[in-house]
């Protein structure tokens, strides 16, 4: 992929980023080249699209806009789930690939490192990724607020639904010890239990299994309550008053809401969890405003650097040109200067160099100072013309 992209005329540096919902090609190219057209054709032909189909599928950013876009992507401000952590990993991975293929250079290397810094700052200086925004993560967070550590905890899944499975997986990842699956059909329960190396039981033996459980996740399609407050009250003593976290993902409900009033029992249904997720999402949106400000700062910093970069070659060629003139003139004068003694020759040499440096000092300083200014390009162009550097 990368060699093909580099072969497109005008493309100097390139990086190819593909995530679950986007394909992006980040390119450093000559402004006057026809690189954008080449890239569009490349993508369209690669995806087997006609020109008309492809036209609506592309978006294109240039200059500062492109820099801002990349920073926002890396900081997960442009993701479907704002603030998710994977995107930065994916960006880093595609950068690593480009590095290995020698597809990046001064501009993209700097750009990508700045984007990582922007992402890192957004993560550490805002609360954008602090609170969970998925139901299963919210359930895990609640479990931690109840049990502290999940080590050695037993999970009881009632019903073999997908959501229950997902939440169960995450609880196991966080240290929960064992899973019991209770289902009307034992075959299905066994299928799921096998995945977790857990135990499968009939729904009839729920009472006994509730005694062992610390976390219960229920997601059956039953029309009535499967776990009633009375049931819990009866086993209260046998459970030795241990804390019990009930998660009811089913609609209609599987667990009697009255259970919530029982001591040391914490019942959350899918709506409660969704409320928590919504609230967390709102917090993220508020934090996103702060994050955008950080991105703006970092964009300004990068653009500054880029502008400085533009003036650097001019300064270098200006110095080289002056050096060449000095060398030519000194060579010409070598004939009569050979009559002087070594000491005087050195003095003349120093004098010439010092005059040249003093003359160049002002234009070089102006080039450096103005490099961050919008008008720097005009000045660079003027210097190049005045000294005939091109």
């Amino acid at each position, binding site marked *: 992929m990368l060699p093909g992209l580099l072969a497109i005329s005008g493309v100097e540096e390139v990086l190819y980023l593909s995530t679950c919902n986007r394909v992006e090609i980040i390119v450093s190219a000559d402004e006057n080249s026809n690189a954008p057209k080449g890239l569009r054709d490349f993508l369209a032909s690669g995806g087997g699209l006609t020109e008309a189909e492809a036209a609506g599928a592309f978006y294109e950013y240039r200059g500062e806009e492109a820099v801002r876009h990349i920073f926002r992507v890396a900081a997960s401000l442009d993701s479907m789930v704002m603030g998710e952590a994977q995107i930065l990993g994916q960006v880093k991975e595609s950068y690593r690939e480009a590095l290995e293929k020698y597809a990046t250079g001064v501009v993209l290397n700097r750009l990508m490192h700045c984007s990582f810094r922007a992402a890192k700052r957004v993560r550490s200086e805002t609360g954008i990724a602090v*609170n969970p925004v998925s139901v299963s993560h*919210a359930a895990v*967070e*609640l479990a*931690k*607020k*109840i*049990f*502290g*550590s999940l080590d050695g905890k037993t999970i009881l899944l009632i019903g073999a639904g997908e959501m229950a499975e997902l939440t169960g997986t995450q609880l196991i990842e966080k240290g929960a010890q064992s899973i019991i699956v209770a289902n009307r059909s034992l075959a299905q329960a066994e299928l799921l239990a096998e995945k977790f190396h857990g135990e499968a039981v009939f729904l009839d033996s729920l009472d006994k299994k509730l005694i062992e459980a610390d976390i219960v996740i229920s997601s059956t399609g039953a029309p009535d309550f499967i776990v009633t407050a009375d049931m819990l009250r009866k086993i209260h*003593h046998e459970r*030795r*008053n*241990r*804390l019990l976290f009930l998660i009811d993902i089913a609609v209609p409900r599987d667990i009697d809401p009255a259970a*919530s009033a029982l*001591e*040391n029992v*914490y019942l*959350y249904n899918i709506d*409660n969890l969704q*409320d*928590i997720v919504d*609230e967390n999402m709102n917090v993220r949106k508020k934090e996103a405003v702060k994050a955008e400000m950080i991105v703006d700062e970092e964009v300004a910093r990068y653009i500054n650097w880029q502008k400085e970069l533009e003036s650097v070659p001019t300064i270098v060629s200006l110095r080289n040109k002056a050096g060449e003139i000095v060398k030519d003139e000194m060579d010409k004068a070598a004939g009569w200067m050979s009559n002087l003694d070594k000491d005087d020759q050195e003095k003349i040499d120093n004098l010439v160099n010092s005059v040249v440096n003093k003359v160049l000092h002002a234009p070089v300083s102006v080039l450096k100072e103005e490099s961050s200014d919008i008008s720097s390009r005009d000045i660079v162009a003027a210097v190049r013309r005045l000294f005939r550097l091109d």
Partner: protein
Amino acid sequence: MILTNLELISFKIALMLCAVSTVGYLSSLLVKKVKLAKISTWILAAAFVFLTADLLFVIHDSSWLVNPDSRDFLLLCAWSVCAVYLALQFKTKTRVLGAFISPFILLFMIAAAGEEAGKTLRPQNLQSWITAVHLVLAIVGEALFIIASCAGIMFVMQNRMLKHKKLSRTSRLLPSLSDLDRINHICLLWGFPVLSLGIIAGAVFAQLSWQSGWLTDPKVIWTFAGWIIYGFLLHQRLAIGWKGYRMAVFSGAAFILLLLSYCSVRLCFSTLHNFI
């Protein structure tokens, strides 16, 4: 004389550090940042080091075990609570607990600063090593109960928020229910025998020196009531299996009750323990 100066300096530093850490802890609760509580814990640990140095100077200076003054007594209270809290930190890492504990430590230290140094704590007739043992054990035991109750009060707060199905910032800041229950358990488990030994030491001394009359002393009755209540709580926990919410409510209530009755005894009655 030099030692006295050193003692005063380390006390002042400890007091200042303690005040800073209390402010830190309370602000961590307000701005809801655990990091602030972590820093405050380190500051409190530093305060503890100076407090320990201060106590060592006092002991070296004035044969403290024989005759502590009331300032030293309050210092010991502060030191005990601080020691127990910091020890718990190693086990449970529930730093926010400090927001509830550190004000007590600070109060003890301010009271100590207010007391006139050199005033004899125990009347001449009460001076013996056994009263010193009684004093130290009773204070450490009570300190453990203070922490058990603070954990209980925090449990009630956290429980309330979780039952209301809200995961607020305060809730995120407070330790988990299990951790708070464990702190309550550990403190009751250690506090009860320590206080029991302290009471026995006091009773032995009182019986030997006065034979009778001391049992009706209001502060003796108060201590005994506290001992019974905590004994009851420990019994319920170990034998009946009380856990979590009920335990937390009873610990919190017992603490408030004992605090109120202590204040009334302190203000209204003249007792054998007038110095406390």
